C-alpha cells in the first residue's frame, strides 16, 4: 500500500505516437514492388494487344489513340505511387504497442497496443519468399479494418517480431 501513488498525469508529457521514428521497409522489398509493377504494366499492355490480334475490327485508329494517350499516364501514375508508397511505409515497435505508417496523399498511422492483439501470423508471398522476406500480420478483435500488415521484413527478423509479440501477448494472459 505504501508504494501506491496516484498522481495526476501530465498528458503533454506522455510518449507521443506522432514523434516515433519509423523503420523503413527492407530494401529488398523494393525489388518486390518493382516486380509487381512490371507485372501489372505487362498485363495492362498485353490485354489490348491480344484483343487487337484476335478481333482487329474492334480497334479503330481513334481507340488506339485513346489507349496510347491514357496508358502512359496510368503507368506513370502507378509507378510514382508504388515507389512513393514504398518510401512512405514504415513500422515501429514500441514497448507497449506497434505502429505502422503508410499512404502517399494521406498519411495513415495505425497503433495497436500489445494487450489488444489477438494473434500474429507470418505470410510469405511467392516473390517475397524468393528474396527471403515475410509479411507480419497482426490481428485484433476490432475486425478487418483494424488489422495490421507489415510487408517487407527480413524472414528472420519477422520470426523474431512474431516471437516478441507472442511473448507480449502471453505476458498479458
Amino acid at each position, binding site marked *: 500500500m505504501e508504494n501506491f501513488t496516484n498522481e495526476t*498525469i501530465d*498528458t*503533454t508529457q*506522455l*510518449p*507521443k*505516437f*506522432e514523434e516515433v521514428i519509423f523503420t523503413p521497409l527492407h530494401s529488398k522489398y523494393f525489388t518486390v514492388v518493382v516486380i509487381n509493377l512490371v507485372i501489372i504494366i505487362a498485363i495492362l499492355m498485353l490485354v489490348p494487344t491480344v484483343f487487337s490480334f484476335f478481333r482487329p475490327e474492334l480497334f479503330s485508329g481513334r481507340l488506339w489513340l485513346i489507349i496510347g494517350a491514357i496508358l502512359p499516364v496510368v503507368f506513370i501514375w502507378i509507378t510514382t505511387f508504388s515507389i512513393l508508397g514504398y518510401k512512405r511505409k514504415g513500422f515501429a515497435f514500441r514497448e*507497449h*504497442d506497434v505502429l505502422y505508417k503508410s*499512404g502517399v*496523399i*494521406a*498519411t*495513415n*498511422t*495505425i*497503433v*495497436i*497496443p*500489445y*494487450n*489488444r492483439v489477438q494473434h500474429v501470423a507470418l505470410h510469405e508471398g511467392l516473390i517475397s519468399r524468393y528474396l527471403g522476406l515475410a509479411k507480419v500480420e497482426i490481428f*485484433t*478483435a*476490432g*475486425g*478487418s*479494418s*483494424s488489422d*495490421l500488415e507489415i510487408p517487407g521484413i527480413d524472414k528472420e527478423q519477422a520470426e523474431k517480431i512474431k516471437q516478441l509479440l507472442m511473448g507480449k501477448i502471453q505476458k*498479458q494472459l
Partner: protein
Amino acid sequence: MSTDFSLPQRQSVVGIWVLFFYSLQRYGRAFWPIILIYAFRFNEVNKIYLVLSLVAVFTAIGIISYLKYLNFTFALDSENKEFIINEGIINKTKTAIQLNKIQQVNINQSFIQRLIGVYELNVDTAGSNKKEGAIKAISHKLALELKSRLLDNDLKSSYINSELISEDDSTAESVDVLQPFLKISFLSLLKVGITSNYGRSIALLLLFFSTIYENFLKFGDDDDVYKEKFGDYIDQNLVLQSILLFIFWLIFIVLIVNIFRTIYKYYNYVIVRQNGSLLLSFGLISTKSTILKPEKVQIVVSSRNFFQKKMEILELKIKQATSGEKEQSSSAIEIPGCSEAEGNEILNLLYQKIPTKGLMLKPNWRKLIFSIFLTIGLPLFAFIAIGSYIDSSIFDYAFLAPIYVICIGLIQYFKFVNNRLFINKDFIIKQSGAWDVKKEIIKPSKIQAVSTSQLFWHKKLNIGSVILHTAGGDIAFQLGDYIVLKQYINKWLYEIETSDSNWM
C-alpha cells in the same frame, strides 16, 4: 414438481409437429429455387407425379422428424452435475453441460410452437455466445421445472444469490417474481412507430410513386382520347389538390405500416435485471429473448430525432463484442423507446455511471465543403455534362435541380452542425446525423486499435481524422483539431497500455 430428470426424457409428443415444421422450413429454404421453377412450370408438370412426389417428401420429412424425436433425449446427471442432451439419427451427438457453467436458461415460443402449444428451452453457457443446448418442444410446466432445476443446482454448487432464486420466466404467461427493470408501454411503441424509420418510409414512398407514375403514363399512352378530351378539363388546382391528398394518404399508410411493424417486433418489451446482466424479451407473435452482459458491451448508440425529442423518447442500440464478423449486425440489441430517465438508468447499469459530454471537438468547415462537393457538386456536374454532350432532353427536369440542391444542402449542413466528438475522462461520445441525431458512446478501454489519417495539404492547417476501432465497430471523426486529437490518442493509448482492464 415430481418429474424425475435423472432418467432420459423425451420431448412432448406433439413436438413431432414442431420438428416436422422446422424440417420443412429448412428444406424449403434449401430447395426454394427448385420449388420456384416447379411453381412457374406448374402447367407442364404431370400432376400425378407432383402429388406423389409431394406425398413422398412429406412422409420422408415426417419419418425424419419422428426419428429425430425418438433419438432426442435430455437428462440431468446429478452425480456429475451435468445436463446431458443426446440427439441425432445417424450421427449421434451427446452434449454435456456442466450445471455450474449454465449462465442462463431461456424459455421461448415461436409462432409454430405457439400454434402447437409447446415451448423452447435454451441453455446458454459462459463459454460461447452460441446456444449450446436447445430443446425444441417441451410443455410449459416441464420447462419451468427443468429451468428451476438447472438454475437451482447452479445455486447450490456455486454461490448463493438471492436474485436467482426466484423462478422468473421470459414468457408472458408466468408470473414474474422479479420486477421488470424496464417495460416499454404500448404508447411508447406507438410513438416509436410514428417517429422512426423515415428513411425506409421515404424509400417506400418513392417506390410507390414511381410505379403509380409509370402506370399513369401507360394509361395515357393507351388512351389518346382521354388525353385530348379530358386534358383540358384537368384544372391546375385540382391536380395540385389531388397530389397533396395523395401524399397525405401515402404518409398515412406508411405511418400505419410503421406502427404495425414496430408493435409486431417489439410488443411487450420487458427488461429484467438478473445476476448483473440484463434479460430482454419482446415480440408479438414470436417472443424473442436475449441476454446482455454489461462487460461485453462495446458501443452504446443513443439516437433521437426532432419528433422523438418532443415526445421525450430515445432509441438505444447496444453493440456487443462479437466472435465473428457476420454476426455483427444481428448482435446489436435495440431498445426502441425509452424515456431519458430510463435510458440513463440503462446506461448507468452498463457503465456504472452516466456518460457526460466533456470537451467538445468540431470538424473543420472543409468537411462541409467536401461533402457538398461530393453530394451536390459532382451530381450537378454530371447532370450538366450529360445534358450538354449526350442527351439534352434531361434539361426538361432542370427545375428539380434547385430542389435537390436545397434538400441535400440542408441535410449536409445539419450533418455538419451535429457532427461532434465529446471527450471526457471515462467516455468518448461521437454525435452525428442530420435528422436522427446519433450519439455513439464508448469507453476508452474498449478501443482495440487507433488509426489516424491526414492529407498532406492539411498538415499546416492542423486538421486530421481519427478512427477508433472497437470489437463492436468503428468510430470515426474526420477533420478535427489534429493536435488535440493526437494528445488524446496518446492518453488513451497510455490508459490502455498501463491497465489490464478487460475489454470483453
